[in-house]
């Protein structure tokens, strides 16, 4: 007996859901960003698992692109958080409501 692709699918779904719940429930912008990273990672895990399952290396190459985009996103996002913190003295996403009608 060996672990099949379905196990990885289930694990990835669980991790993705934990990340999504974190985005919905936490109000610290930094934690929300970390949860987004968690969701990206669960997708990466699924890419590599399917690459292994199908014997196709292209899935592994796609992981690189996901990592690059995540790195760029984190850099810009954290810069935004720092800038918002400077002006509003808070990173509570409930208080960032200037665009609220």
């Amino acid at each position: 007996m060996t672990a099949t692709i379905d196990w990885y699918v289930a694990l990835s779904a669980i991790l993705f859901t934990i990340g999504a719940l974190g985005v919905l429930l936490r109000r610290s912008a930094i934690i929300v960003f970390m949860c987004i990273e968690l969701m990206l990672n669960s997708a990466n895990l699924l890419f590599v698992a399917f690459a292994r399952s199908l014997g196709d290396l292209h899935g592994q190459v796609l992981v690189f692109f996901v990592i690059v985009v995540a790195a760029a996103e984190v850099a810009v996002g954290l810069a935004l958080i720092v800038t918002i913190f400077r002006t509003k003295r808070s990173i509570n996403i409930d208080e960032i409501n200037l665009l609220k009608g």
Partner: protein
Amino acid sequence: MGDPLVFGILAIVAIVAALMMVTSRNAVHSALWLVLNFATIAVFYVVLNAPFIAMVQITVYAGAIMVLFLFVIMLLGAEQLRGTGVSSRGERFHQAVAALLGVMLITAVTLALMNREGAGGGTAVPTMPITSPQELGLILFETYVFPFEVTGVLLLAAIIGVAIFTLRKKRGTAV
């Protein structure tokens, strides 16, 4: 695709680390739990015959990105910001709705992925040698040259954007 025992242990560590990351009150603790989660995923990559991706995961994710997170947390002194000062009205309601949506999401994702074409029957996993960086590089620079170059532009845009965001504006000078 891995021993069930190894998979079980790693899966438990990954899920517990993720849960602790979401529920942790201290942002630094959250970041450290996330590092543990990333490391576990890297071990998964090794199990899945992708050691190079595992190393990239450790260096880029657990190394660079999480260090950036920790720097920002400590720079802002945001360790103990509870994310809330006064508990807003209807907060419980929001949490209940979020939990319901989360349960619905995991149900939908699991059902969609379990009922996909060819699920369950695919026991014949092809034998695949451990991926060498050379093979990955060949695919990357033969099939995916254009996306690779686009990522270069993306990173440049990110660098310029971050510089513009964080430049301290001197008073009286237009930026």
